[in-house]
Every structure is written in C-alpha cells, then in structure tokens.
C-alpha cells in the first residue's frame, strides 16, 4: 500500500512539480548546469530515492507553513464593520470587437483602455466617451494578451503568433499603426499575458511554452527567463513598484510562483488550487496576491506567512474564475467568471457581497482602473463594460 501511495504521489509530483532548466542557447544569464548541482550526488541515487526525498521535503515545507498558521484571516477581520449593499452598474458598454474579447488593460490616464480579441483586432478606447481611438489588425487571431505602456504612448499585444509586439500610438489617426510595429518577445508557444515593467523599456511575458521572460523593448533582447512551471503559464502580475522586483505567475500546473526578476529564481511557490490558475493579482500593499482558477475558487496567498489564507467560493459557483482584481484598498476582490457573472468578495471576511449580471457570455478579463473609480470587464460576448 505504501508503494502505491509513494508511486501516486511521485507521479503527481512529476506532473506538477517539474522545474525546467533553460537550454544553453536560450539565454546567457541562466546558470550553468554544473553550478546548480549543490545537491549531494550519491552514486546510488535513483529516481525513487529522489522522489522520496522530494515528497519528504514537500511535507516538511507544509509542516513549517502549518506551524505559523495560528489564526484565520476572517477571525482577525471579525472586528471590522461588515460591508453594506453595493450598487454597481454598467456605466458604459464598449462595442466594436467582432469576436470574443480576451484581454484588456487600462492606461495610466485612467480613461483609456486597450482591448484585444479573437478577431485579431487590438482597439484603444476612450472609456469616458466610448470612442475608438486606434485599431490594429494583428496577423493572427486569438490575441490573448495586451498591455498599455506606462507612458500611454504604446501598447503591447500577442497571442497565437507566439510573440509580443509593441505598437507606438500615433496622434495621427490616419497613420497605419501596423507599420511601426516592433516584435519584442519570441516564445515557442502562445503568448498568454504581457505587462510593461515600470517603464516603456521592458516587458514581462508568460507563455504556453511554460516559461515567463523579461525583454528589452528596444533591442528585443531576452534579459531573463523564468523556468519552474510544469505546464502552460496563463497569467502574471508585477508587484507594486514600492515592494521591489518580483512578480507572480499562475499556470496549468495549478501552481502560483513568485519570482525574483533580477535573478530569475522562484522565491515561493503555492500549489493549493485544484485546476488551472487563470489569473493572479497582487494585493495593493504587495504583501499578498489573489488568484482565480478553473476550480471555481479565488484564493488569497499571504507572502510573508507563506501560505494560502483565504478561499473565496460558494457551492453555487461551479464555473471557473477567469480574471480577478482588487479595489484600491484591497477590501474588495472582483472576479469575472465563466458563468457570465462577476462576483464581488469581501477579501477580509471571505463572503460574497455582490453578484453582477450583464455580460451574455464568459467574462474573460477584468481590471480596476488605476485610481480605483471603476472597473472594466471584457467578455466572450464581444463587449467590454465599465462598472462603477
């Protein structure tokens, strides 16, 4: 019986815990394999021995984490006032995409939005007026990722073309944006997410090829690659700039990894979800992050306690959460779901405070505006909605 358990857990470890090593040709900044072998190599090391050790270490890790699990978040939050009724409505509907909206991002000016769609189009909108300001047709369909540059002067996007390209936005509406396109990132599978770092100069990407990567926009050079996920990486989010150079990624291996951007090392890893993690978002203070998964739950992970501290779920919610974001103070977590709804959660107390209807198909993307006055959702119903 022990053999069966060991074999089963070893198989699980292998599916979900594979750590990749960059091939030498990929990047010069990856450590040489010989330098990495600090593990004492016994001549008799076998696969089984290593697997047992891996299982033991995982158990030890959970033990260490459990020692500090002395209270629940919602217990600490008991003393705070409960939230009242929320009145949030659709204030604008952005129509224009010809197919599923897959991704959106806000401009720092708090009114412009970039969105991308299965129809191959990337559109920049003025969310106040609902006017379309720019439109680009990509050479591929399924543009799964898009991002606004911090300066507001460019957008990045990509998807099934396995690339991330940057388009400078021109003030001249007649100018053909596609002509100025700059190819920055190259993956060996689809681009699932992208984000500029603090400046227009660097972009972070995640891909179906199981890696994340940091790129220099000007030269297209790979600055750092991040290996550790055992399957497609679906999402990423950069830590708020005050908290330093880290980012979190989530993937089909059910893991959420926190990375050091400079060294490429995985600092912390969380594996409590039961299915693909579609979305990760830092808590505004940078000390925690939330995730949304196909297992129909959203979860909160405390980085300093190094553990999951809340699960946002209900028996009645059985469809996956595709996208999550926090309100400005971190008190509310907005989750877009595959059942077409948006659930609003009290982050501290753990209960749902509101459910928003309106979209006529899956909600695929959701972001709160930079000043927290509204949030935008994008859907497979071809539209985007602004809620406030």
């Amino acid at each position, binding site marked *: 019986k022990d053999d069966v358990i060991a074999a089963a857990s070893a198989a699980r470890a292998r599916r979900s815990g594979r750590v*990749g090593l960059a091939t030498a040709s990929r990047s010069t900044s990856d450590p040489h394999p010989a330098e990495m072998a600090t593990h004492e190599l016994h001549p008799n090391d076998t696969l089984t021995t290593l697997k047992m050790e891996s299982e033991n270490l995982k158990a030890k890790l959970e033990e260490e984490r459990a020692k500090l699990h002395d209270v629940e*978040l919602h217990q600490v939050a008991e003393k705070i006032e409960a939230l009242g009724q929320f009145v949030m409505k659709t204030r604008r509907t952005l129509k224009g995409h010809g197919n599923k909206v897959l991704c959106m991002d806000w401009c720092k000016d708090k009114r412009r939005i970039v969105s991308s769609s299965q129809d191959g189009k990337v559109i920049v909108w003025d969310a106040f007026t609902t006017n379309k300001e720019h439109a680009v047709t990509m050479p591929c369909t399924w543009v799964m990722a898009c991002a606004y540059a911090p300066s507001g002067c460019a957008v990045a996007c990509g998807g099934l073309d396995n690339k991330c390209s940057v388009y400078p936005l021109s003030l001249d509406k007649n100018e053909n944006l596609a002509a100025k396109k700059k190819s920055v990132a190259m993956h060996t599978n689809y681009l699932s997410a992208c984000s500029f770092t603090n400046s227009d100069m660097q972009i972070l990407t995640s891909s179906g090829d199981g890696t994340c990567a940091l790129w220099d926009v000007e030269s297209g050079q790979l600055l750092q690659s991040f290996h550790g996920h055992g399957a497609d990486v679906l999402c990423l989010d950069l830590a708020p700039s005050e908290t330093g150079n880290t980012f979190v990624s989530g993937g089909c291996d059910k893991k959420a990894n926190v990375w050091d951007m400079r060294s490429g090392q995985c*600092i912390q890893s969380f594996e409590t979800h039961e299915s693909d993690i579609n979305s990760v978002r830092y808590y*505004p203070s940078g000390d925690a992050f939330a995730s949304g998964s196909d297992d129909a739950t959203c979860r909160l992970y405390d980085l300093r306690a190094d553990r999951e501290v809340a699960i946002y779920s209900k028996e009645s919610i059985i469809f996956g959460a595709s996208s999550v974001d926090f309100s400005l103070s*971190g008190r509310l977590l907005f989750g877009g779901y595959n059942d077409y709804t948006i659930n609003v959660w009290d982050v501290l107390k753990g209960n749902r405070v509101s459910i928003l209807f309106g979209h006529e198909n899956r909600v695929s993307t959701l972001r709160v505006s930079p000043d927290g006055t*509204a949030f935008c959702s994008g859907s497979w119903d071809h539209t985007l909605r602004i809620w406030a």
Partner: protein
Amino acid sequence: MARDMSDIDILKMELQQLQKEVKNEREPVSKTAKELVDWVEANSAEDILLKGVPEDKNPFKEKGGCIIT
C-alpha cells in the same frame, strides 16, 4: 521547458528548489493577517468602489456633458 531534461535532472532541480523554499523566513498569520487588515482600513477612505461617490464626482457615472481634457 523541461522537455529535454532527464527525469533525474528534473527531480534534482525540484529538490534544490524545495530545499531553498523550506528555509524561507515566515511570519505567523496572526501578525501578517493583522497587517493586511490594517492596510485596508488605512486606505478604505480613498477606495471609491468601496465607499461610493456622489453622481457628479465620478466621471463614469454620468454620460454626456462636456469634458475638458
């Protein structure tokens, strides 16, 4: 990705990563949860989606009218 690595190499990498993570410094939830709660309370006043705002103050609430940028 790890496709070109042998199973043993993959496991060694995994072990190395776990050995590192086990040594991570951690704080008790009682301390960190309190800090999360404190942060929210300190910033709740500016959270418009939380507190709400009069119709005339939020640019998204009312369509129409003149916006001078």
